[in-house]
């Protein structure tokens, strides 16, 4: 029953995707949306079944593996289509299918009238399916399959509006950067095959102890590469902001709630490997810390509403990486969950705004929407508060736990990370407040006055209800882990990934006090700046640097893309054409030329022929007599 729930959870979205694809134009666009939504909720139901089945099970029986068939085999090596159901994956299944279902539902309203909704919903279902493979996979290769398929779905959805060059470019960029991650992931798998002979998660974890340090480090690095690419962490982070070219629900689902957090899931899932390679694990934490700061700073200067949220996402995932890197797995997943709630909420409310404003995304053209869209305003505010980590909202519980854990780990690295986390809290306060004020407060801009839809409310029911649900979740989602009082969520996750550090209750609340203070400071600074009508970043130079996202794109362009093009062109000009192709021509025409010369010896003069024979006879005689 439990396992059947998991399988239903996995397969329902696939069935949805196939049904929509095969039905084609025979079903209406709305029907396609319903199919997608319902199958996702079926998946959620399956996930619930699995979750409660697991809940009810004996704690020793909370690691269930189910195998369908052998997917790939060669010699002794076999990879099976198998799922691993444990506390971690069941949690992820709930998040993915639950939040996914809400967002797909929301999409029905958001995408209405687009004209290609069938394609959209097929992609969405495909994505949910892929994401579920990823979280349920019982072995690394299947995990990699899910890993790649979510990348594919992400590519498809980012480039959904394929007539927009920016969208297509962003989609390609996302795919290629993810392919780099896939490649390192795959290399890690190769190493595992050679060193442990298996790719099954549990089998590998059993064997980790017997591996050499180098091997473990390399494997961990490979996995980290995949995680970094998927979760848009520095240095493979540049695709995420561009990915905002996709429809907003996509941003909510893929680039906030689920896919981009897959890296965190991987870090926690493969924690035995990372624990055996502490340096790499710390590297993950450091990368997370750097990302959370950089993204936070860059978010300060963005004008696009979605991009601000996107940078905020990077930043929040940085927290999760930090948590996973220091071994606070429970908090990493906890923050993953709350972040899924409030970030999805933020994106969806942003979507409502965009929808309301005819697709406008520039916050300079917004303002004063509080009056026009009061319910949206409340939802956004809840999301923002959760993001800033203001008490009782979900983000407060999860984020502060991470920072406290960093403090609790107690060494220099820990303290550094602790400081970074706190600075991040300040930054979060700053950019969130900036965004909130720019969009909802102040006077409506000219644009809003001319474009805002009057009279049809804030959005269709299919959009409003999911937002409402998420608003509730973003508010109360954190109560599943109140330090020192009631921490069932953390214990649940701990069963799969035993944490390396645990903050004391004092550390927890102490950190919270500091963090909340910092967030509030950020809030007030930003508010003052807004009221004064100026930006938070006042230096023009700094502004420019940040606007260019610290020149990462330019750097990569110069380091990788342009050299690749140059090498390709150079190879064609200097090797392929002149050497490989022309050498053939040369040999050919050269031979024919020699043939002409030879034929010219055939003068047609009879005497030549006789002379030739005479000479040949002479040579033959000499050969015979002299060589004798």
């Amino acid at each position, binding site marked *: 029953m439990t396992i059947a729930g998991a399988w239903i959870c996995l397969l329902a979205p696939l069935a949805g995707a196939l049904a929509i694809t095969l039905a084609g134009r025979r079903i209406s666009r709305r029907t396609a949306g319903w199919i997608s939504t319902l199958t996702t909720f079926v998946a959620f139901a399956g996930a619930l079944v699995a979750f409660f089945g697991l809940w009810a099970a004996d704690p020793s029986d909370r690691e269930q593996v189910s195998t369908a068939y052998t997917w790939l085999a060669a010699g002794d090596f076999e990879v099976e289509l198998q799922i691993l159901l444990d506390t971690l994956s069941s949690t992820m299944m709930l998040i993915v299918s639950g939040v996914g279902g809400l967002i797909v539902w929301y999409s029905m309203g958001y995408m209405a009238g687009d004209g290609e909704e069938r394609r959209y919903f097929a992609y969405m279902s495909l994505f949910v399916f892929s994401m579920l493979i990823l979280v349920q996979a019982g072995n690394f290769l299947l995990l990699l399959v899910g890993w790649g398929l979510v990348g594919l779905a992400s590519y498809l959805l980012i480039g959904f509006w394929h007539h927009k060059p920016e969208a297509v470019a962003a989609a390609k960029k996302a795919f290629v950067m993810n392919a780099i991650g896939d490649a390192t992931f795959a290399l890690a798998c190769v190493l595992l095959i050679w060193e442990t002979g298996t790719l099954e998660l549990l089998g590998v974890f059993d064997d980790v102890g017997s591996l050499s340090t180098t091997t473990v480090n390399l494997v961990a690095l490979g996995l980290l590469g995949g995680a970094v690419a998927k979760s848009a962490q520095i240095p493979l982070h540049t695709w995420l902001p561009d990915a905002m070219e996709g429809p907003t629900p996509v941003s909510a689902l893929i680039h906030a709630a689920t896919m981009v957090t897959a890296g965190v899931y991987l870090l926690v899932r493969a924690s035995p490997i990372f624990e055996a390679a502490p340096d790499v694990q710390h590297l993950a934490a450091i990368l997370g810390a750097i990302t959370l700061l950089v993204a936070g700073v860059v978010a300060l200067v963005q004008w696009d509403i979605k991009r601000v949220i996107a940078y905020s996402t990077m930043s929040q995932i940085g927290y999760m990486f930090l948590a996973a890197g220091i071994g606070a797995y429970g908090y990493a997943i906890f923050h993953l969950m709350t972040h899924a709630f409030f970030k999805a909420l933020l994106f969806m409310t942003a979507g409502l705004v965009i929808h309301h404003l005819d697709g406008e995304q520039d916050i300079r053209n917004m303002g004063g929407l509080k009056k026009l869209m009061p319910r949206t305003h409340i939802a956004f505010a809840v999301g923002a508060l959760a993001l800033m980590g203001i008490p009782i909202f979900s983000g407060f519980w999860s984020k502060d736990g991470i920072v406290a854990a960093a403090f609790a780990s107690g060494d220099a690295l820990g303290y550094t990370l602790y400081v970074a986390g706190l600075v991040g809290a300040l930054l979060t306060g700053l950019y969130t407040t900036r965004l909130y004020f720019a969009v909802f407060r102040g006077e409506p801009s000219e644009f809003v006055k001319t474009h805002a839809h009057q009279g049809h409310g804030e959005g269709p029911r299919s959009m409003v209800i999911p937002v409402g649900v998420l608003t509730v979740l973003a508010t109360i989602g954190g109560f599943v882990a109140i330090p020192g009082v009631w921490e069932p969520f953390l214990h649940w996750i701990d069963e799969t990934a035993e944490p390396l550090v645990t903050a004391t209750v004092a550390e927890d609340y102490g950190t919270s006090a500091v963090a909340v203070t910092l967030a509030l400071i950020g809030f007030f600074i930003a508010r003052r700046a807004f009221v004064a009508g100026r930006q938070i970043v006042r230096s023009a130079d700094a502004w420019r640097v940040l606007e260019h996202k610290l020149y990462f794109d330019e750097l990569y362009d110069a380091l990788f893309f342009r050299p690749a093009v140059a090498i390709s062109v150079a190879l064609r000009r200097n090797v392929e054409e002149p050497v490989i192709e022309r050498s053939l021509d040369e040999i050919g025409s050269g031979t024919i030329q020699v043939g002409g010369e030879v*034929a010219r010896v055939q003068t*047609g003069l009879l*005497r030549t022929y006789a002379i030739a024979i005479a000479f040949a006879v002479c040579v033959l005689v000499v050969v015979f007599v002299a060589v004798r």
Partner: protein
Amino acid sequence: MDGPDIGWYLIVAALMFGIGALGVMMRRSPLIVLLSLEIMINAANLTFIAFARQQGDLGGQIFALSVMAVAAAEVAIGLGLIVAMARRRIALDVDQASALRG
């Protein structure tokens, strides 16, 4: 045996062969080329006969006799060709018979 060694005969034959060959290779008139061929064949005949004497075997002489007939036949055909060419007003110059080449 009276007179010079067989070797001297052979030298004469060799010289004739060389002279004949030179004629074939040098002359442009087909008639003279034919004549030169005859000299070459006769050189071979002389060799045969000399060796027949040397070996005391008549086979060489028989061979030489057959060769005479063959040489006559060759001359007949050659002359026929030359006559045919002349009748078609083709220049009797082997250097000009070079339409076929390359």
